[in-house]
C-alpha cells in the first residue's frame, strides 16, 4: 500500500524545519535514501519505523551529529547546514537520546550545566531546575547524583536538560522503551504541555499505539526510504504497521496453549538471591515451571531482576541449598554453566558482544565456546578445528547468517546476523530447555521473524523455552504463557491469550490491583 503525504491539520502553523532529499551512506549500506520530512511549530510529529529503518541516522543529521551526503535542511525557512550538536542547540534543537548521555559520576545540576552555555552559577541553576520541575510536574532533584537515580528519573533529567535550553524543537529517540505504561502516560502529559507552550516535538518510536495516542502526524521510514507522511488520527494501527513493515514480511499470530498438559522440564522453586551490589535487584522467592512444548515469556521493565535471574538460571551465579533448580527432575542448583549444558540446558544472554559472543574471535571459536563440554568437537583436550568450522558453517547456513567472508570474526557481523548466529548456535544443539534473554533486541524485522520462528519450532519439537523479554509485542506474539518480573519477584504464570496488555503493564509497574486481576486470570 502507498500513502500520499497529506497537508497538516493546522495550516496556519509555520514550518519550523523542512528536510528534503536527505541521503546518507555508510560504505555500501544506505541508511537514508531520499528522505523528506517537515515539522511545524508546536506540532507533535512521529518518526516511525522498525529497528534499522534509518530513524536514528536521520535525527542524528538534524541534531548535527552527522552530515548528510546529499539533501537540504531548512530551519525556519532558511537553508541551514547544522554543523554540530552545539550549533543545533544554538538554533533551538534539543535531543533526548535513547541511551542516556548523562554523566553518572556527576550531580543532576552539574549534568545540566554541561549542556548550557557557561556563565550561570550552579546554585542559580539548581533553583531554576527546581522551579521548572515544579511547573511541569517533573520531579527532579538537582543535587542528586545521577547514578543513584532510576531509569525513569534519568530520562526526566535529560528532558529538563533540553528544556532549559529553551528549544523550539525537541527530538525524543524512543523515550518510552524504558518506561512502564503508567510512566509513559505521565511523560505524554508533560509532552502535551510543551506542545501547548509552542515546542515542536519529534517523537521516534516503533510502538504504534503510542504514536496514535500522542502525535498528529507520522512520517514512516522503511529500509532508509520515506514511505509517506500520514495523519495518525486517520490511520489504524494495522495500517501504520503495514506501512512500517511493508507487506513482504509475514507475521506470527498469538500462540495457543499447547493442547495437553505436558511435563515440566525446568522447575524453579523458591529461588532467592541477595543483591550483590547496591544497584542489583535481589531475587525473591521465584517459582515457575516451563513445560515441554511451550514458550514461557517473562515480561518486565529493565532492572527488575532480569540479569540476576538469567545468571541464576545459566549457572553464572550459583545458588545454595538443594532442589531449587531442576531440569528433568535432576537437581542442578549448584552446577556451573558447562555442567548445566550437559544436562540439556541451552542459553543466550541479552548482550551479544562480550557475553553471548566474543567479538574478537572467529565464529568457529565462538561455536566452540558453548559446545566444548558436550564432547563432539573436543577429544582428549584437543580441539577438532575442522569440526568446529563445520559446526559454525552449519549454524550459519541453517539460520541464514550472512557472512562477509568464510569464518569471520564475530565483530564483522551486523547485530542482527550475530544474534541469529548465537541463537542458532544454541538451538542447533536441540537443548531440552532453552533460556533466552531479549532474543530480538536491536534486530531488524526479517531477522526477528526468523529468530522467533526458530524459537517456536524448538518448542514445537518438545523442548521448553523460557524467554525473558521487555518487548510486549514479542511476548504476545510467541509466548504461550507469561509471568511478570517486578522488583525481583515473579508473578504467577498466566495464559498469554487470556491476558490484556493493560494487565501486564500494571503488573510491570508493580500495581497491587493488577496482582488481584492476574490472580483472577490465573483462576
Amino acid at each position, binding site marked *: 500500500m502507498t500513502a500520499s503525504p497529506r497537508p497538516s491539520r493546522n495550516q496556519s502553523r509555520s514550518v519550523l524545519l523542512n528536510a528534503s532529499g536527505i541521503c546518507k551512506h555508510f560504505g555500501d549500506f544506505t541508511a537514508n535514501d531520499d528522505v523528506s520530512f517537515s515539522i511545524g511549530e508546536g506540532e507533535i510529529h512521529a518518526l516511525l519505523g522498525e529497528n534499522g529503518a534509518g530513524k536514528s541516522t536521520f535525527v542524528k543529521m538534524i541534531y548535527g*551529529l*552527522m552530515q548528510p551526503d546529499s539533501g537540504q535542511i531548512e530551519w525556519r525557512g532558511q537553508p541551514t547546514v547544522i554543523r*554540530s*550538536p*552545539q550549533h543545533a*542547540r544554538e538554533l533551538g534543537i534539543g535531543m533526548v*537520546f535513547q541511551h542516556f*548521555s*548523562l*554523566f*553518572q*559520576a*556527576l550531580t543532576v545540576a*552539574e549534568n545540566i*550545566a*554541561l*549542556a548550557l552555555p*557557561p556563565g550561570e552559577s550552579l546554585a542559580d541553576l539548581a533553583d531554576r531546575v527546581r522551579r521548572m520541575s515544579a511547573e511541569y510536574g517533573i520531579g527532579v532533584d538537582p543535587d542528586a*547524583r545521577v*547514578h*543513584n537515580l532510576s531509569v525513569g528519573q534519568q530520562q526526566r533529567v535529560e528532558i529538563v536538560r533540553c528544556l532549559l535550553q529553551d528549544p523550539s524543537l525537541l527530538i525524543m529517540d524512543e523515550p518510552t522503551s524504558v518506561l512502564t505504561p503508567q510512566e509513559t502516560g505521565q511523560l505524554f502529559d508533560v509532552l502535551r504541555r510543551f506542545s501547548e507552550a509552542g515546542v515542536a516535538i519529534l517523537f521516534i518510536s516503533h510502538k504504534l499505539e503510542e504514536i496514535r495516542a500522542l502525535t498528529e502526524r507520522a512520517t514512516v521510514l522503511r529500509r532508509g526510504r520515506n514511505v509517506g507522511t500520514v495523519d495518525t488520527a486517520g490511520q489504524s494501527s494495522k495500517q501504520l504497521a503495514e506501512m512500517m513493515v511493508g507487506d513482504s514480511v509475514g507475521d506470527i499470530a498469538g500462540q495457543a496453549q499447547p493442547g495437553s498438559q505436558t511435563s515440566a522440564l525446568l522447575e524453579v522453586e523458591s529461588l532467592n538471591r541477595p543483591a550483590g*551490589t*547496591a*544497584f542489583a535487584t535481589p531475587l525473591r522467592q521465584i517459582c515457575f515451571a516451563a513445560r515441554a512444548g511451550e514458550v514461557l515469556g517473562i515480561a518486565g521493565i529493565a532492572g527488575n531482576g532480569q540479569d540476576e535471574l538469567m545468571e541464576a538460571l545459566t549457572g553464572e551465579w550459583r545458588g545454595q541449598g538443594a532442589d531449587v533448580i531442576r531440569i528433568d527432575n535432576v537437581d542442578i542448583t549448584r552446577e556451573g554453566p558447562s555442567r548445566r549444558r550437559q544436562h540439556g540446558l541451552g542459553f543466550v544472554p541479552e548482550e551479544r558482544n562480550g557475553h553471548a559472543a566474543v567479538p574478537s574471535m572467529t565464529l568457529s571459536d565462538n561455536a566452540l565456546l558453548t559446545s566444548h563440554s558436550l564432547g563432539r568437537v573436543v577429544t582428549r583436550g584437543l580441539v577438532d578445528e575442522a569440526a568446529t568450522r563445520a559446526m559454525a558453517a552449519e549454524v550459519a547456513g541453517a539460520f541464514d547468517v550472512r557472512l562477509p567472508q568464510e569464518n569471520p570474526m564475530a565483530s564483522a557481523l551486523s547485530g542482527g546476523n550475530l544474534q541469529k548466529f548465537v541463537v542458532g548456535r544454541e538451538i542447533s544443539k536441540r537443548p531440552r530447555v532453552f533460556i533466552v534473554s531479549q532474543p530480538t533486541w536491536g534486530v531488524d524485522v526479517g531477522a526477528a521473524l526468523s529468530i522467533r520462528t526458530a524459537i517456536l519450532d524448538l518448542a514445537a519439537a518438545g523442548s521448553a523455552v523460557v524467554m525473558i523479554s521487555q518487548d510486549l509485542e514479542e511476548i504476545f506474539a510467541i509466548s504461550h504463557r507469561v509471568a511478570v518480573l517486578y522488583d525481583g519477584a515473579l508473578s504467577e504464570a498466566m495464559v498469554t491469550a487470556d491476558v490484556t496488555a493493560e494487565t501486564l503493564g500494571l503488573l510491570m509497574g508493580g500495581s497491587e490491583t493488577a496482582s488481584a486481576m492476574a490472580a483472577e486470570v490465573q483462576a
Partner: protein
Amino acid sequence: MLEDLILTVLMTSVPLVYAATGELIVERSGVLNLGVEGMMLMGAVAAFGIAMVSGSLVLGVIAGGLAGMLTAALFGILVLGFATNQVATGLALTIFGAGLSGLVGAPLIGHAIEGLPVLRIPLLSDLPTVGKLVFSHDLMAYGAVILVAAVAYFLKRTRAGLVLRAIGDNHDSAHALGYSVLGVRFMAVLFGGLMAGFGGAYLPLALTPHWAEGMTAGRGWIALALVVFASWMPWRVLVGALIFGGITIMQLAGQARGWTVPSQFLSMLPYLATIVVLVLISRNREFALANSPACLGRAFHAGK
C-alpha cells in the same frame, strides 16, 4: 634532629606532589599515562643541564617543565592522535625517557650546582619549630601546596574542571554535547607532563644537587600509585605524598640506625598501601562511581 628528619620528609614529598597532581588531572580526563617516570627523568636532566649552563635555577625549573611537557606531547600524539594502547605507550615512554635522559645527561655526571635557596617567610619563620618546618622552604615547595589548592579549586569549582571530569566519566556523552574530547585530553596530558617535569626538576635542583642516571629511582611509579591511593582527590595527594615521602626517608634513617627491618620491605609499603586502597574503593561502589574516572584508559573514537 627530629626537625631535620621531618624537613627531609617534606622535601622528599615535593616531587611526588607535583608528579601525582599532574597525573591526577590526566587520569581525571580519562587518560592513563604510565610514563611519569620517563617524563620526570627528562625534566630532571633538562633542569640540571640548563641550570648548570645558564647558572639560573629559574631557567632550570622552566626547562625541566618544558622537557616533561614535550615528552608528554609525544605520548599525547600517539595515544590521542593515533589511538594507540595507553598502557603500552606509557610503558614505552618510561623506557624512552630513561634512555634519552641517560644519553643527554652523560656529560653532566660529576658536576654539582648550588641548590634552590630557602625562602624564609619574614617573622613567621622565626617561630620556634613551626617556623623551621612550615615557613622555611624553597619556592617549589610552597608552589606544591598552592598547586594542590589550585587543582582542587579547578576541579570542584570551575566549569573547565567540570568539563574535564565529564570527559573522564563518559567521553561519548561529552562528545555528543559538543565538547572536544581529544582536545581537552591533550591539554590534560600536556599539563601532566609539565608537572612531572617540575617534579623531576626538583630532584637535581633541590633534593640532591647533582645529576645521576635514573635518579628518580621509582618516584614516577610512586606518583602513579599515589593518584590511586588518593582516590583521584587532590588534597589526599598532599597527605599521601607526605606518608609515601615519610616511608622513603624511614628506609634511609632506618639503615643509618641499624634497624632490623629490611629496607626492601619499607620500599614495598607505598604499593601495599595502594593495593589496600584499591580494594577498599572497589568494595564501595558508591564511592567508586563518584570518584574514579569511568573512561580511564579507554581510547575515544569520534563518530562511533
